[in-house]
């Protein structure tokens, strides 16, 4: 996936983005399920950040809908098992199970949107570098870079093999179980063979066990400001009852 082209927050250090995302998730996911109103306030983050990253929030929202089936699957048991009445609305009693169901859906969508934002804004390779600098072991950072690099190469290889098979299978789209093993085994052998060639190419250029990527990643004032703006906002949304404040305000007016 390509990072967003020249966006306002595209220049923010991936470490700052990662930190803000994690604090956001912790703050948002720690809201009790019965406080749907508090969870909704957290939508402010993706709604404001998406345009800054040159993404229409609409699109982000639509893209996050893929988690919906899982959320509904887990959440649907709440209205069934938790029938404590929460409030009455136009004469209909709403169970607290329904409230937690709605909360699960919303927090699931928001968490996915925050993650999607992080992915769109910072490229994967920069994120690996950030992880490495945040103390993730070199072995796993190297590993992530390698997997990401060869993902497309191997997918193409699998696809080619798949097509070669389809061309001779007269419309049967899936495998007989007895053929699947040798097929995947063949792909595995090719993969091992490829690793042998890559290893030679690495050794030929003096590889000594650690991948060193570009050292240019600087924490700037902009990054500090970015963190100092969002993190207090998340804390306030978590610990201040914004809805109640608003209601009191309306009541006074």
């Amino acid at each position, binding site marked *: 996936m390509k990072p967003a082209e020249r966006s306002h927050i595209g220049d923010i250090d991936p470490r700052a983005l990662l930190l803000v995302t*994690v604090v956001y998730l912790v703050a948002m996911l*720690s809201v009790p399920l019965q406080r749907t109103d508090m969870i*909704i306030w957290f939508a402010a983050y993706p709604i*404001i950040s998406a345009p800054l990253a040159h993404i229409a929030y609409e699109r982000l929202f639509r893209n996050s809908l893929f988690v919906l089936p899982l959320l509904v699957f887990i959440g649907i048991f709440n209205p069934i098992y938790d029938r404590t009445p929460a409030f009455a609305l136009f004469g209909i009693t709403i169970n607290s199970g329904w409230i937690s169901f709605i909360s699960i859906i919303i927090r*699931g969508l928001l968490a996915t949107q925050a993650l999607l934002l992080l992915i769109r804004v910072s490229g994967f390779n920069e994120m690996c570098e950030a992880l490495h600098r945040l103390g993730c072991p070199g072995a796993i950072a190297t590993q992530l870079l390698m*997997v990401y690099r060869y993902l497309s190469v191997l997918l193409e290889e699998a696809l080619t093999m798949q097509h070669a098979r389809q061309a001779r299978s007269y419309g049967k789209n899936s495998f007989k179980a007895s053929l699947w093993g040798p097929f995947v085994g063949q792909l595995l052998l090719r993969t091992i063979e490829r690793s042998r060639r890559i290893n030679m190419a*690495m050794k030929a250029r003096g590889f000594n*066990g650690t991948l060193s990527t570009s050292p240019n990643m600087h924490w700037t004032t902009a990054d500090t400001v970015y963190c100092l703006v969002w993190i207090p906002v998340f804390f306030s949304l978590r610990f201040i009852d914004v809805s109640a404040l608003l209601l009191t305000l309306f009541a006074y007016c």
Partner: protein
Amino acid sequence: MADALVSPAIAAGTGAIAATLIAVAASKVKQIRRDDIIPLMGVMGAFVFAAQMINFSIPGTGSSGHIIGGVLLSAVLGPWAAFITLCSVLIIQCLVFADGGLLALGCNILNMAATSCLIAYPLIYRPISGTSLKPWRITAASIAASIIALEIGAAGVTLETELSGITALPTSTFLAFMLPIHLAIGAIEGVATAAVLCFLAKYRPETLYSDYTADESSCTGRFASGSGRLRPVLIGFAIATLIFAGAFTWLASANPDGLEWSIEKVSGISDMPSATPATAFMPDYDSRFAGIVGAIIVMVMLWAITTIIFHRVRNAHQNSSTKGKE
């Protein structure tokens, strides 16, 4: 697992255990003296994605969706290298495809990678298959190991969701639901793993993992003593983390919302509805509903405003860039 299903307390606990395991595995992998291990692990991670494209005639449904799993990777790479590889697959699923959550990463690593590579492979697969290349032993070992791995993983998902206080589903019902499904998935994965491993055993047996580290420690004494000094420290660290994480999780489960509880304790502030000024002003239920409606209205307004600004900025950008071309 998705972010929506975990509480921050559970995420922190599982994250701590997962991070410790990764650190241990990283140091173990460094001791592997096979010089192509770095590119091999890299392409094997990519292989896991590629192999998933090749569909299977038995429909595989379920929460994990990984037909190629830790048992197969372990049988080729050895448990620690396989663990790192599978972790990288899970991290990429999260950070590239937004599949699984950032905070749920610890849970996912424990449920999928640790169970298959660090529990099922050494405790089930190795004892059953031994060093034999006989198909029936490999098949039995693969099926047993895959089923055990998935069942423990399913139990993990259940436990983590329950401890997070997300679902109202009773634990026993949840388990009764998850375990049979994962028994079926495990059986399918086991058969698939066996099919690939039997192929390898028949045509290229040298690609299957045989204990490199054991060979190494016997031939290079220096390395063996080095790891010997390191081992107690690592084990101690791992046990300490497990105890810490266990205590943390227990605290979290004793209180449905662990973080809530600890923050209350520490700061003396409670944000339970009864203590907020709003409830003093309005009956709780109505204010709750009004709060939800208010929040939605404000968010929709915010959305509208940012969208308008967004379009205006973009149009301005396009105008200036076309001008630039002229």
